[in-house]
């Protein structure tokens, strides 16, 4: 008997036991959906990583402040990470593309009737080199503002959505200040931060969120001020913090090749300036992204495991159905053997039916997975759920293969039935 004939018979059998067939392939379908979802996520991760590297610049390093043990700080051995460190680095390595120190703070904001506690960041002019993808109104601050700790600030406005607002975003409330910044045009206004008055000299609007790959590692600051201004008026300092302290310094060496060289120079320089106190940490940006991706990979592995378990459960379901099918068709097997069907013919027939169930389950699973990916993924953006063409045949092969594997034993049993006994079976 040829395979085409088996396929035809298989369809007749599957169709005449719709409920049974549906039950057995539905768990395969769920498994396939989970596997497909994982494929999409893993591939999306790689696309995002590539984009993150593109935007971050190839030669990115981050020097972050770390709390040192109290003693060395108390005796004034090291002042912690400071603007002085940044200036020394700049002086030692004028070729660095970007050297951008940051100091984070928070403040009570008043703008007319609006009050809120806001996160703010003090930065230098090099901040503009951190992948500027804003729409600017007004102006950015200049070296004069920085030198004089001018009381000026820049509002970062959220980007909104370019396309349709995704389903989940309806349940997502902007924080108060982000909403206020969008509703009220703050450019040119004078606002109060803690007990000082500041002029909003510029508004930077983020690109639409669904077009912005940086959502992946975006930080929270909503107000940008000159670093010196934050240091002088807004930073909350402990007794041991220096007046020109910063939280971190982000360096872009310009290319991947120059990272090790810059890293060595920075380590030597800071080690000297900090007198050996390890109150800072140098992080390779790629390592950070790698770590983030590592976490996501663990998540993907978990989903994949669920998928594999579901497919295996589906396989057991198919095994069960095949066994049940064989029991209800023992007489038919006898008839087929009497009419000249060999053991191999019987084996092929039941395997074909199982494989068909597997393929149908796989197709249903792909449908389920595709609709699931649209809604389950973190973001509606196309980069999140990226599928390659081979993911589809691969998932189909997984489901059909599982079905075949699990049908092997029952089909073998069927082929070994004694034809005389089978014919006599009622």
């Amino acid at each position, binding site marked *: *008997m*040829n395979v085409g*004939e088996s396929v035809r018979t298989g369809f*007749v*059998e599957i169709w*005449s036991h719709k409920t049974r067939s549906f039950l057995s392939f539905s768990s395969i379908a769920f498994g396939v959906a989970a596997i497909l979802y994982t494929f999409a996520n893993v591939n999306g991760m790689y696309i995002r990583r590539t984009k993150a590297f593109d935007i971050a610049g190839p030669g990115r390093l981050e020097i972050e402040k770390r709390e040192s043990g109290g003693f060395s700080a108390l005796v004034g051995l090291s002042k912690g990470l400071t603007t002085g460190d940044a200036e020394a680095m700049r002086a030692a390595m004028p070729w660095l593309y970007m050297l951008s120190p940051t100091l984070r703070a928070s403040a009570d904001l008043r703008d007319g009737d609006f009050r809120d506690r806001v996160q703010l960041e003090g930065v230098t002019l090099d901040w503009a080199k951190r992948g500027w993808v804003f729409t600017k109104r007004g102006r950015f601050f200049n070296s004069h503002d920085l030198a004089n700790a001018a009381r000026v600030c820049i509002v970062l406005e959220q980007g909104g959505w370019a396309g349709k607002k995704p389903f989940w975003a309806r349940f997502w409330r902007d924080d108060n200040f982000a909403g206020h910044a969008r509703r009220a045009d703050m450019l040119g206004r004078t606002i109060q931060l803690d007990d000082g008055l500041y002029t909003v000299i510029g508004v930077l609007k983020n690109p639409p969120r669904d077009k912005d790959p940086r959502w992946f590692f975006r930080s929270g600051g909503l107000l940008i001020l000159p670093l010196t201004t934050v240091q002088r008026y807004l930073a909350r300092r402990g007794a041991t913090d220096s007046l020109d302290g910063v939280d971190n310094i982000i360096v872009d060496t310009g290319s991947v090749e120059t990272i090790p060289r810059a890293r060595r120079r920075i380590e030597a320089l800071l080690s000297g300036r900090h007198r050996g106190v390890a109150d800072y940490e140098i992080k390779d940006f790629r390592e950070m992204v790698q770590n983030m991706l590592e976490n996501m990979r663990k998540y993907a592995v978990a989903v994949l495991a669920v998928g594999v378990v579901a497919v295996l459960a589906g396989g057991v379901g198919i095994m069960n159905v095949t066994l049940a099918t064989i029991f209800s068709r023992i*007489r*038919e097997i*006898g*008839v*087929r*053997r*009497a*009419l*000249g*069907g*060999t*053991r*191999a*013919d019987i084996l092929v027939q039941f395997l074909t039916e199982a494989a068909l169930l597997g393929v149908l389950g796989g197709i249903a699973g792909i449908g389920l997975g595709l609709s699931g990916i649209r809604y389950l993924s973190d973001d509606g953006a196309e980069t999140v759920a990226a599928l390659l063409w081979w993911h589809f045949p691969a998932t189909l092969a997984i489901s059909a293969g599982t079905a075949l594997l699990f049908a092997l034993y029952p089909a073998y049993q069927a082929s070994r039935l004694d*034809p*005389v006994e089978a*014919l006599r079976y009622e």
Partner: protein
Amino acid sequence: MVEIDAVVKVYGDAGGYRALDGVSFTVPEGQFAAIMGPSGCGKSTLLNVLGLMDQPTSGSYKLDATAVQGLSDAERTHLRRDKLGFVFQSFNLLPRMTALQNVCLPMGYAGLSRKDRLERAHGLLARVGLKGKELRTPLELSGGERQRVGIARSLANRPRLLLADEPTGNLDSKTSVEIMALFRELHAEGMTLLLVTHDPGIAAQADRILRVKDGRIVADERPAAQPA
């Protein structure tokens, strides 16, 4: 066509139940032989051995001059497919298939092309008087019609020997007469027939009656009505 000699079939181990206890006979080509006997006498076992569904414990069996001892399961299946046709008491049609598909089934195992299968199946169904009912399923056919499909199916691979196990056992007397007429037609065309029955009226239509009792042939008669 059929030569069996001293065939013994024992179920279980050596001291078990002797279903066939030294059966020997020969059926020449073109003969219509009936096997008669009370239930439990071993006629079903005999038919299974003759149909290559079961292997004798000892004794020899030659089908169409081929010795079947020592053949593998696949070889016996191929022989069965190519030389034998089965007609069953309970028809044994596959319920979810149409008459046409049922007749096509053995030809599928024999590897005929789809076109040849359909052509031959249509011819066979017309031959047994079921023209126009090819696409009905067994449930939509009467008992007599089902047995006609069964006979058409048994002829699908142009067998040399037809084995019929109580082919009229589930039919009323009028339909039985029609089915027997069909068997006699086949016989007249030269088909070798072996028919198991316990109905003397049916057996009387054969060339020869083999009476089986307790696993042995107890009589080999030639009915006066139809001398050989």
